[in-house]
């Protein structure tokens, strides 16, 4: 939780409350807020000094968070807490005056001697400051990019795994949906079979009908033939007997009558106009 000091700063309350439990086995200070730890300048040092090393297995979890930003510094060397420490007594310009005074004192009393090393120090430190000011940000970005790549790689693995499982779930769901629709297939097959059965039944029925009709036609035609034969036989018998019954004399008389009749007709015919 971000309190008043902000992230990355010396959080006196958290130190006094939380970390002290780690420092002493059994957490003897857990009930109190140690006042020596509230001092922002000396607090970290005191905490490290009272930390007891290797009395038991180090607790591996939860590991404390890496702060996102380092402590704020002035001139790249002196932490801002020092300036705040001096502020109540000497104001804003106090620390700078102190620094300048110390440097001038050491120079004038030859505590710090200007030798050849001074110039090499100026050139080396100047070079370092120039490089840090110019390329510092880009190197920091590069380091952040390295971490970013590592996280992205792991994230990709995680996403690929999630995607795989999601695909499996979708496939399973579609399979289940297909199973729901299976009955259409079975209905169609059932209908097909029913139609085939019907067809076969009707076909056989028709064949039976045809066979029976054949038999009956046969009987009818036999009857017809018998009747015709009988008729012909009777006609022949009647003709034969009629012809037998006609004597020769009767035959001559009939023929003479027919001729007389024809002559009569022939006399009458030419009197009528031809149409």
């Amino acid at each position, binding site marked *: 939780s971000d309190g008043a000091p902000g992230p990355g700063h010396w959080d006196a309350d958290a130190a006094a409350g939380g970390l002290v439990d780690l420092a002493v086995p059994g957490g003897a200070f857990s009930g109190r807020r140690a006042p020596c730890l509230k001092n922002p300048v000396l607090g970290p040092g005191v905490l490290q000094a009272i930390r007891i090393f290797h009395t038991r297995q180090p607790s591996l979890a939860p590991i404390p968070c*890496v702060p996102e930003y380092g402590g704020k510094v002035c001139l790249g060397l002196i932490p801002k807490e020092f300036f705040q420490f001096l502020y109540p007594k000497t104001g804003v310009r106090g620390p700078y005056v102190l620094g300048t005074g110390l440097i001038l004192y050491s120079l004038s009393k030859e505590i710090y001697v200007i030798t*050849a090393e*001074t*110039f*090499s120090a*100026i050139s080396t430190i100047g070079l370092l400051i120039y490089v840090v000011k110019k390329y510092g940000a880009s*190197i920091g970005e590069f380091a952040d990019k390295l971490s970013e790549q*590592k996280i992205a790689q792991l994230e990709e693995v995680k996403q690929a795994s999630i995607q795989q499982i999601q695909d499996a779930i979708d496939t399973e769901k579609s399979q289940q949906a297909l199973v729901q629709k299976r009955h259409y297939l079975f209905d169609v097959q059932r209908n097909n079979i029913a139609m085939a059965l019907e067809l076969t039944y009707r076909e056989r029925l028709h064949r039976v009908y045809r066979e029976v009709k054949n038999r009956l036609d046969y009987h009818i035609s036999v009857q017809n033939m018998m009747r015709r034969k009988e008729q012909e036989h009777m006609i022949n018998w009647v003709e034969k007997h009629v012809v037998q019954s006609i004597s020769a004399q009767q035959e001559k008389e009939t023929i003479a009558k027919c001729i007389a009749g024809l002559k009569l007709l022939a006399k009458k015919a030419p009197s009528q106009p031809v149409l």
Partner: protein
Amino acid sequence: MNENLFASFAAPSMMGLPIVVLIVMFPSILFPTPNRLINNRLISIQQWLIQLTSKQMLAIHNQKGRTWALMLMSLILFIGSTNLLGLLPHSFTPTTQLSMNLGMAIPLWAGTVITGFRYKTKASLAHFLPQGTPLPLIPMLVVIETISLFIQPMALAVRLTANITAGHLLIHLIGGATLALINISATTAFITFIILILLTILEFAVALIQAYVFTLLVSLYLHDNT
């Protein structure tokens, strides 16, 4: 001048206690152990650099040579960091001491040679005679090759010592020249100061290059012998 030119190369001691041990052990705390999956910027950059260097340096070695990976990487990190820290003002560079460089060079070189003689005796002995030498020259050439073999550790140590020491001396001298010229002519002093800056840039490069060269040569001797 109340100190002679070579005072900065004396083994440092405080109240009679040799603190050179502390100075030699100091660079190791500048390489923190990566504790987490995502580390801070310093460790990320160091990890990336070490990966880059080790991949490039161990590419030429076979399985047996790659068992030396930790040794070679520690070597280049130690020499590089020690040389770079020595460029800070008023600091002591352990690699200017011939004793220390001999102590690094001789065991490593001897390790490679003994490995070669132990596992590939015939090939190691064959190194003493280059291919295609005419028959009368053979004895002399064997002697020359033997001398060249035994000079390798000396060359390694002396090369490193001489380079770093010469660099420090030059910086010291030119700084002294600048100091002396300030009272005489400010312009000349300024020019000399520019020369000093250029030299400092060179020295930064030399610090890294010497580390690289040392490790590369050890790696080459290893490659010959595995």
